[in-house]
């Protein structure tokens, strides 16, 4: 690997959290390394650990201080970092293909995005669905993916006034980011399409069935008819 990774900064979050930070950067290799070390830790230490939560370039260990000594935990984290870095987590993981309908009825802001970037709507769709994105992390809401890799030609500022309610499955652009809202929620992103898939389902295991942090993600263009057919199948499966 090309990226130099330093030892992490490890700090206390009061009495039950240890935050491990590998540096303030959004970088695919650093992100893969963060997830790899977190995975190793999950495997070698279980007693007293409630959860290991990963993000861009940091992870949080939540633990029970009655069962776990933080000095021992700190040493284990360093040991997980010192092992050889060539590992399967650096190999490409799977690619999730998310069907998206970019037709006007599901894409209220796609013309604005095209106009802002001096593109046609067709070009916006081609660029957005022609790119492979990296899922750095999930957060903000259950199943919400933080995606890296949006083409510069599509960067568009947020709406001045956020919408009060976006439907589940809305696909949007905000600045240099693109993402999908798995649940209906308020939001200021420019909406350029919608997926019929139910991206978060508490009844499924895992509850985010189509992707995980570290996966690649591609949007696949579908027609309104396909959208309705797939949405119908999703509801039928319940």
């Amino acid at each position: 690997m090309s990226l130099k990774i330093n030892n992490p900064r490890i700090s206390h979050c009061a009495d039950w959290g240890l935050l491990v930070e590998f540096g303030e950067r959004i970088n695919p290799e650093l992100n893969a390394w963060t997830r790899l070390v977190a995975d190793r830790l999950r495997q070698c230490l279980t007693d007293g650990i409630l959860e290991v939560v990963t993000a861009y370039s940091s992870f949080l260990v939540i633990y029970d201080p009655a069962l776990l000594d933080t000095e021992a935990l700190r040493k284990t984290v360093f040991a997980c970092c010192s092992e050889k870095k060539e590992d399967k987590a650096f190999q490409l993981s799977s690619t999730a293909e998310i069907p998206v309908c970019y037709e006007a009825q599901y894409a209220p802001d796609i013309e604005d995005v095209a106009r802002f970037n001096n593109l046609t709507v067709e070009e916006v769709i081609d660029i957005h669905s022609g790119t492979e994105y990296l899922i750095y992390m999930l957060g903000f809401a259950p199943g919400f993916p933080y995606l890296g890799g949006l083409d510069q030609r599509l960067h568009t500022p947020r709406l001045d006034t956020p919408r009060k309610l976006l439907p589940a499955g809305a696909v949007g652009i905000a600045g240099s980011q693109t993402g999908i809202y798995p649940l209906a929620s308020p939001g200021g992103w420019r909406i350029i399409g919608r997926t019929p898939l139910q991206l978060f389902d508490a009844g499924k295991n895992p509850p985010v069935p189509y992707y995980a942090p570290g996966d690649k993600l591609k949007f696949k263009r579908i027609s309104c008819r396909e959208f309705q057919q797939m949405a119908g199948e999703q509801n039928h499966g319940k």
Partner: protein
Amino acid sequence: MANDTFLVIDPGAFTTIQDLGRFGYQTLGVPISGAMDTYSARAANMLAGNRPTSAVLEMTIQGCTLAVMRNARVALTGARAEIRHNSIQRPSWSAFEVEPGDLLRISQVSLGCRIYMAVGGGFEVPLIMGSRSTCTQAALGGLKGRALQKGDFLPAGHAEKFPGQNAVRGEFIPEMGQDTKLHCVPGPQEHMFQDKGRDLFTYPFTVSQRADRRGIRLEGPQIQHSHQSPGAIVSEPILPGNIQVPADGQPIILLREQTTGGYPKIATVVSTDLSKLGQVIPGDSITFVSVTAQHARDMNLEEQERFKSLQNMLWQET
């Protein structure tokens, strides 16, 4: 259903089913949820004869009115309110037996913010990802993923007759008031603030109107980020009790319904003081006291001992 134990006559302002939280899914963006005041929730379960992980009702500001459908033992803790069991007035932090046809009416809070009610056997909603806690933003857990509504039936699990005590002794009842002192450990990003974040510990802050299960925004003197520090960081996982400071210098204490944050965290409230945050209301004053991580750990171990003593006392046969 056979084990429906209460019918909701009036749900109160925002009443949800909570347990001690849902751990293990934050990497997928699923928040911890769980009781905001875990001390009161655990005490209610002890009084009802339950395990600490049983699900309880969390009522916010306004209590609820329930019609009883089955014999059960109920216990109420947390914020002070008037509890009427038919025509009998019951004290807070106590347990009693109810029968079919009884009416339980819990008033608005007079001190604190959240009232907890346990039932013998626990509120028996399905376990979702290992927890019965309600997360309303994702519509998951609890009763259909939402706050209680008029006409809901509340099922309880099976319980043997509980032979223990009916009241918590005063020394085990937490103080509540308009001035709350919170112990916190500096960091994890205290270096991004002037004087390593001393501003936080210098003056009291006021709880603003923007206070809910997600977090509590405070108002007070502006906390200064250090000159070389950017006002925001790359999004990181967060822990309940993390105190984030955005560019406006007004701190936000993060609580149980959020998994990531993008502002530097000046300090973190110790786990044993989080329950106090479940009982503050807008306008209350908060003072921060700095402690070491080691001291915070000692506080945690002390509280675990305290729970053991409380349980020993309550589970003594009368």
